[in-house]
């Protein structure tokens, strides 16, 4: 079984079936095309998007419905095609797609935030992913995670 050196959890086994392709990489990391999702019991509900090519590169993700139970993803026709999703309807989070926000630790003044404007969206069946930059989004690219009692879209 192939092994992967991870940024947070040392060496882990993985199978080829768990590798997700990101044909466009992620903005700022356009050459990173293969990732695995890692989950550990002690870090639930966070997901870790570990690059297969760069062991030091691992994004921490928050499932979008944990961030906002009422979150609505808005994929345009190009996004749907790029993700090999059926045209003409929005995919169902948790059934057709995995949708999660990238968490940023912030700095001294600003606590951790999640980018709800541009979530990572993965076609669970085809194992293809991309970061969808939503235009006209009601969601913030820096939604505080710790600040309020509840997370809410900023309007």
């Amino acid at each position: 079984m192939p092994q992967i050196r991870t940024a947070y959890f040392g060496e882990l086994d993985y199978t080829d079936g768990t590798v997700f392709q990101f044909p466009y990489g992620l903005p700022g990391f356009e050459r990173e095309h293969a990732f695995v999702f890692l989950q550990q019991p002690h870090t639930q509900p966070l997901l870790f998007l570990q690059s297969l090519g760069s062991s030091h590169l691992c994004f921490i993700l928050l499932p979008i419905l944990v961030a906002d139970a009422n979150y609505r993803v808005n994929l345009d026709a190009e996004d749907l095609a790029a993700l090999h999703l059926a045209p003409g309807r929005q995919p169902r989070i948790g059934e057709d797609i995995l949708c999660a926000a990238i968490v940023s630790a912030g700095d001294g003044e600003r606590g951790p935030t999640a980018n709800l404007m541009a979530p990572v969206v993965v076609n669970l069946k085809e194992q293809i992913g991309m970061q969808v930059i939503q235009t006209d989004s009601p969601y913030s690219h820096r939604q505080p995670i710790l600040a309020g009692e509840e997370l809410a879209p900023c309007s």
Partner: protein
Amino acid sequence: MLIMKRRAGESFTIGDEIEVEVLEVAGSRVKLGIVAPESIAIVRKEARVTREENITAARPMDPEAIAALVHHLWRPAKTQP
């Protein structure tokens, strides 16, 4: 901030080398045509912001900060008053 009104077919310039033309106005959307030197990167602001956020987010997060985040996320929801 400089504010100007332009109609479809009208344009304006930024410096000597950049020209922006309003091609079409339809509802709440404006279609722009931009002529600029190749050395000038033109990206939608959302894309730029996301790129910058990703670069910040890719920095390794302190294990204690991760633990604090997980702890916060597991905190039982407060009941509504």
